[in-house]
């Protein structure tokens, strides 16, 4: 009985703690984003972060994009050919990529590549007192370090998703038309016919929100990590897990708005 009560109490405490953290993270995100309008302007540092976060993720995005498009074409062909509708292979690949797999897979790869390094970097900067050093040199670490990374994420991810989609569509075309022998004209024609602007808009909207989400969670986890080496390691793992789960949850929510 006592053990039961303890367990219930523990669950309650954990829930309260999680809600408090959610609030803390939200306030952190808002106060940081508000610094966007504060002087001094961090233009040069945005560019540096775009390089680290966006260009740094480019290769992995191109590779995963290509293979996603290829496997979609392969799977889709064998499914569609059974009911004699392989003419719809183009739209199948394009809609899967643009609406769902592009934003979600790119975001997940982005979390692994850029998100984890953001959390780890910020955590290490805190352990080695670099945050305090910036503060002492009258540079606000929240705008210099946090804001630049969040904005870089929010701008980079939509661009990466567009590149992911484009590469995936091209790879899907190569597999579908050149390898599996679907008529090229039909493939492209059906694709253009079936994909609406609404689909592209949905995918694009998702990627902007995913970018903001990943940026805020990863900087937050780094900022609130216990300032020890184990603390940073733990925070990095948690940030990647939390981002991945949140991306999928947010994906469901946004999708339900756009259908």
């Amino acid at each position, binding site marked *: 009985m006592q053990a039961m009560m303890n367990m219930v109490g523990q669950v309650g405490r954990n829930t309260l703690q999680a809600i408090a953290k959610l609030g803390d993270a939200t306030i952190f995100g808002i106060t940081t984003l508000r610094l966007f309008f504060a002087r001094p302007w961090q233009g040069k540092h945005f560019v540096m972060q775009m390089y680290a976060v966006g260009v740094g993720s480019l290769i992995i995005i191109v590779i995963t994009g290509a293979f996603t498009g290829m496997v979609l074409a392969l799977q889709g062909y064998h499914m569609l050919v059974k009911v004699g509708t392989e003419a719809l292979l183009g739209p199948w690949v394009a809609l899967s990529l643009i609406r769902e797999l592009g934003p979600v897979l790119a975001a997940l790869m982005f979390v692994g590549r850029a998100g984890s390094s953001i959390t780890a970097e910020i955590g290490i900067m805190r352990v*080695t*007192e670099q945050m*305090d*050093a910036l*503060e*002492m*040199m*009258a540079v*606000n670490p929240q705008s210099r370090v946090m804001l630049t990374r969040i904005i870089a994420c929010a701008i980079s991810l939509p661009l990466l998703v567009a590149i992911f989609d484009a590469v995936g569509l091209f790879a899907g075309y190569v597999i579908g038309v050149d390898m599996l022998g679907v008529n090229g004209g039909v493939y492209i024609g059906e694709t253009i016919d079936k994909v609406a602007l609404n689909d592209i808009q949905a995918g694009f909207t998702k990627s902007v929100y995913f970018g903001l989400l990943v940026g805020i969670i990863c900087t937050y986890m780094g900022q609130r990590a216990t300032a020890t080496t184990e603390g940073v390691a733990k925070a990095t793992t948690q940030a990647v897990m939390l981002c991945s789960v949140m991306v999928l949850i947010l994906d469901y929510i946004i999708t339900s708005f756009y259908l």
Partner: protein
Amino acid sequence: MIKTQALVRSFDGVKALDDVDLHIEKKKVTVIMGGSGSGKTTLLRLLAGLDKPTAGSIMFAGEDLAKVSRKRLYELRMRVGMVFQYSALLNSLDVYENVAFPLHEHTDLDESVIQTMVTMKLEQVGLRGFERMMPSQLSGGMAKRVAFARALVMDPQVVFFDEPTSGLDPISAGVVSSLIHETTAKTRMTSVVVTHDVQAGLDIADHVILLWQGKVIAEGNPESIKQSEDPRVQQFIKGEPNGPIPFSRSQTAYIDDLLHKPGCVRMS
């Protein structure tokens, strides 16, 4: 230069600093000493404005750091430098860019002027010619000297040092100590040093403040500290394991714990 009154800082209800009154004089080296957990790092962070006190005031050049706006605090920081325990060089920048960082951030000086200033500061700490090294390539002593150069580059009125000699070999420690002493004497700046290195602290100090459990237990010039009759001061200076500051931090009787006396078993 800096004055504190009835300064209290508590963490979760535990007072790390309790009713501290200090006066840090201009153009002198003030050394704050104390054992681990005595509150000296907390005190330094408060003096530097990195943390806000729970109660009391910190007057810096006539302004209360506990009350000034963030903007004003940043303006005041142009006149302050700090050398951190682990140097805290920005590891994405090389030595030159680290030392030049405050100048790049807060001045519109020509790059050639900045270069001259950085060269002068690096010469002062004996590291001219190391401009293109990255922080990860430097030894602890060299990193600390670069941090020193960076703290000096804006010609500050006050420089804070957090454990400047800890983790360094005796020669590097000696170099850093004499740098603090000489620079203070030559440039008329005020130095505040936090350390648990008794010998180095007493050597460079003009004024010593001894902290124990968040309270000032002794204050004065190094000679008077050495002559102090307070047994706690003597124990700290001589580094004796037992004395008024007990070796054992346990709260329960040893015999009770050994006998697993009911009600006395401590939870981990």
